[in-house]
C-alpha cells in the first residue's frame, strides 16, 4: 500500500508511458511548467532557508571550529570525523560524557512530556466531551496555557517552583502539610520534573482540542449500539474510542516527540544556560557549546546526530502507524 501511496499522481508520470498522440505531450509539459512555476517561490525559499543551511551545518560538523578558528567558519581546518569520534567514542573527552548525559536527559524529558501531554489531553477531552453546562467556557479556559508563550510559561513556573517563596511549596508544605520539608525543585534530580510539568501544562490544550475534535466527529451510534449490547464505559473506550482515535494519536505522537526533543526555551529560561547534569537537554547543550564556547564543530556534529536520531524516529513511527494514515 505504501508504495502506491507515495507514487506521483498519474498526471506527473513520464510522458513515455502516454500514447504518442500529437500535441498532447507539449500541452502537458506546458501545464506542468505552470505548476512548477507556482511552487517555485516556495521551493526556492525552502532551498535557501532550509536545505542550504542544513548542508552548511553538515559541512561544519567536519570542521575543527574552536575559539581560534570559528571566525574562519567554512575555511576552518578540516577535521574529518574527529568531532563525531570525540562525541561518540572518546571517553576521555569531557564533551563525550556531556553528550550522553544530555541524550539520556532528553529521552527522559521526551518520554514524560509526551506521555503526560497525550494522556492528559485525552483525559480532559473525554471529560469535556460529556454534555454539561458551561462546556464552551471551560473549553476556552482550558486553552489558556496554549496561548501563553513558552518564555512566559518558563518565567512563571520558575517563580512558582522556588523552594522558599514559591506557591508550589507553600501549597505542599504550609497549606496542606503534605510534605514536612520544602523540596528544592530547581536543582538536582527534581529539576527534571521542574521542566517536564510546565511543558505538559503548555502542551495539554493542543492535545486536548485535537482529541476533542476527534471525539466529536465520532458517530454516536457506535457507542449506543455497544451500550445496548452491554459494553461498559471502559470497554467502549478500549474497543471503540481508542481505535478510532489512533490516527490522531499517531500524528500527535510524531509531532510531540520531535517538539519535545528539540525543546530549548523552557529549560534555558528556568534553569539557565547550563541546567546541570540532571536536566541538560540536547538543545541546551548544543547551544551552550556552540554559542558560548565557540565549539561550533561539536555543536554541528551533535545537531547532525540528533537529526539522524529523529529521522530514525520518523521511520519507526511511519512503520508503526502507516495504516492509520490512510484515508479509508
Amino acid at each position, binding site marked *: 500500500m505504501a508504495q*502506491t*501511496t*507515495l507514487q506521483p499522481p498519474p498526471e506527473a508520470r513520464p510522458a513515455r508511458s502516454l500514447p504518442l498522440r500529437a500535441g498532447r505531450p507539449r500541452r502537458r509539459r506546458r501545464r506542468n511548467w505552470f505548476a512548477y512555476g507556482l511552487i517555485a517561490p516556495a521551493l526556492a525559499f525552502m532551498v535557501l*532557508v*532550509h536545505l542550504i*543551511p*542544513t*548542508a*552548511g*551545518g553538515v*559541512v*561544519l560538523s567536519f570542521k575543527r571550529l*574552536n*575559539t*581560534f578558528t*570559528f*571566525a574562519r*567558519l567554512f*575555511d576552518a*581546518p578540516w577535521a574529518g570525523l574527529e568531532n563525531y569520534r570525540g562525541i561518540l567514542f572518546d571517553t576521555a*573527552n*569531557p564533551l563525550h560524557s556531556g553528550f550522553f548525559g544530555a541524550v539520556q536527559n532528553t529521552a527522559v524529558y521526551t518520554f514524560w512530556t509526551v506521555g503526560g501531554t497525550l494522556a492528559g489531553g485525552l483525559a480532559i477531552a473525554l471529560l469535556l466531551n460529556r454534555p454539561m453546562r458551561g462546556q464552551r467556557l471551560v473549553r476556552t479556559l482550558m486553552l489558556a496555557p496554549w496561548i501563553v508563550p513558552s518564555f512566559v510559561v518558563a518565567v512563571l513556573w520558575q517563580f512558582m517552583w522556588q*523552594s*522558599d517563596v514559591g506557591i508550589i511549596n507553600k501549597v505542599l508544605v504550609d497549606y496542606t502539610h503534605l510534605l514536612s520539608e*520544602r523540596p*528544592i525543585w530547581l*536543582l*538536582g*534530580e*527534581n529539576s527534571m520534573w521542574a521542566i517536564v510539568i510546565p511543558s505538559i501544562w503548555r502542551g495539554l490544550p493542543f492535545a486536548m482540542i485535537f482529541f476533542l475534535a476527534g471525539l466529536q466527529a465520532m458517530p454516536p451510534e457506535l457507542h449506543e449500539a455497544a451500550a445496548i449490547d452491554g459494553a461498559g464505559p471502559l470497554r467502549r473506550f478500549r474497543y471503540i474510542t481508542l481505535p478510532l482515535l489512533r490516527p490522531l494519536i499517531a*500524528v500527535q505522537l*510524531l*509531532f510531540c516527540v520531535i*517538539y519535545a526533543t*528539540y525543546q530549548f526555551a523552557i529549560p534555558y529560561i528556568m534553569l*539557565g544556560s*547550563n541546567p*546541570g*547534569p*540532571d536536566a541538560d537537554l540536547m*538543545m541546551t547543550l*548544543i547551544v*551552550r557549546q*556552540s*554559542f*558560548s*564556547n*565557540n565549539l*561550533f564543530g561539536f555543536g*554541528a556534529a551533535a*545537531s547532525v546526530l*540528533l*537529526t539522524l536520531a*529523529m*529521522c530514525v524516529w*520518523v521511520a519507526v*513511527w511511519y512503520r508503526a502507524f502507516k495504516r492509520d*494514515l*490512510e*484515508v479509508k
Partner: protein
Amino acid sequence: MPKRLAIVTSAIALVLAPAAFVACGGDDSSDSAAKPSGASNAAQGETLEKGVTLTLWTMPNSPQPKEDLQKMVAPFTAKTGVNVDVQEVGWDVQFDRIRNAAVAGEGPDITQAGTTQVPFFAALGGFQDLTDKVEEIGGKGAYAEGIWNTTQVQGQDGTWAIPWFTEARSLYYRKDVLEKAGVDPATAFKDLDSFKATLQAIKDKVPDVQPFGAPGKKAYDLVHQVMPFVWDQGGAELNADATQSTINSPESQAGVEFMAGLITDGLFDKSQLERDGTQVENQFKGGRLAVWIGGPWVLGSIDRAEDDTWSDEARENVGVAPMPTGPSGKAYTFVGGSDLMVFKNSEHPNEAWALVKFLSEDQTQVDYAKLLGMFPARLDPQQQVGDSSENHKAFFEAIQTGRTYAPIPQWGQIENAYKTRFGNILDSAAGVGKDYNAATVKSQLDAAAKEADGLLAQSAG
C-alpha cells in the same frame, strides 16, 4: 494518501531544523570574515573632523543606560563637534553582538566589554592595538595593576582596551543583625574563622534572617564568588603561564570546600542556589540575608528612593567589610568591571580615540562611576570615590588588592566549565546532587581541570 505524504514531509522539515540552525548561527561571521578591514587606514590627521558621528555600544550600566551616557558625552560633542550615537546592547546578547561585529568587520566605533572578555575579543583581530596611544592618558601607571592586566592578552604584545569603570567584591552585612548577634563589626569578618563564627552567631541568635547566601550555577558570576576562597587557601585557577588548570590542586579544593562547607553547616541558605545573582542581591536588599558578597553598585542604590527592592531595615543598616583573610594572612577578592575597545574598522579612529580619552578624564570618570554605583578605573578618581564614605573605602581597598583571571582568549570557556562544576559541588552540599564528600568534590574538580586543559590545548591549526 497525499495527507500521509504531507505529514511525513513536515516531520522531516521539523527534524532537519537543528542542523540548519547551527549553520545559521555562524553565518553572519562567514560572509564577512573575508571582508577587508579597510577602514583602519582612515585619515590619521591630528585634528578632529567636526560633524562626524561615532557609534558607541554600551551595556545596561545605569538605570537609564542610553540617556545617562548620552548626557555624559554631551560636553565632548560641544567641545569637539563630534557627535556620539549611544546604543544600548543588553548583557544577554552583548557577547554575541560584539563577537559578530568583530568578526564581520561591521560594528560600531567603540564598544564596552566586560574585563574578562577582552582577551577573547582581542584574539578575534577586529580591534585596534592602542599601545602607541596609552601614554596620552598616563599609561599603565594610572591604573591599579589588576585592572591594567584586563587590557592585555597573555603572551602577546599589545593593549587592546582601556579600563572604563571598575568593581570589586566585598562583604555586605546588616549592622542591626550583627548587633543583635552580639558581634563586633570590626572583627566580624577578619579571617575565615571569624567569618564562620559570625555566621554561626547570627544563626543562633537572629532566627528571622538567613546568615548568608550566594547564587548557584544560574549566576553569570558564580566563579567570582568562589574564587576568592580558593585564592585564600593558596589555590589558583590556572598555573602561572596559563598552560594548565590547577583547579583540582589540594589548595583549590580546600577553597571550594570552604564555600560548600557553609552550606553543610547550615550557614548558607541553600534555597539561594536556585537564583541568579540579581535575585540573590534582591534577597539581601529585601532583608532576608544578613551577609552577602556583592559589588559596589548596591551601595549606589541605597540612596535611590525609587529602588523598592530595599526593605527599610536593610536600607538603613548596610555595612561593608573587606573579604576575610585566608591562612596566608592575605585577603583576596575578584576585581572586574568594563573596558572600552576601539574597532579596527572604525572610519573615524582619531575621533574614537578622542572619545576614549574624554571618557578617561578624571571628572568624567568620577561622574559616570557615581551614576553607576561603580568605581572609576583610574587610580586618582578612584581614590576620590574611596574617600567619600567608610563603606566606599572598603571597596577602594578591595580594588587595590583585587585579583582577576589570566588574560587568555579561552578564559570565558574555562570559566563556564568551572561554573558548571562549582554549581554541581554546591548542589551536592545542598543535598540535591551526588552525595557530598571530599571524593565528590575532587572528582568534580578533576573533571573541571580536564575540560579546562582541553580548552587550553585549542589552537588555530
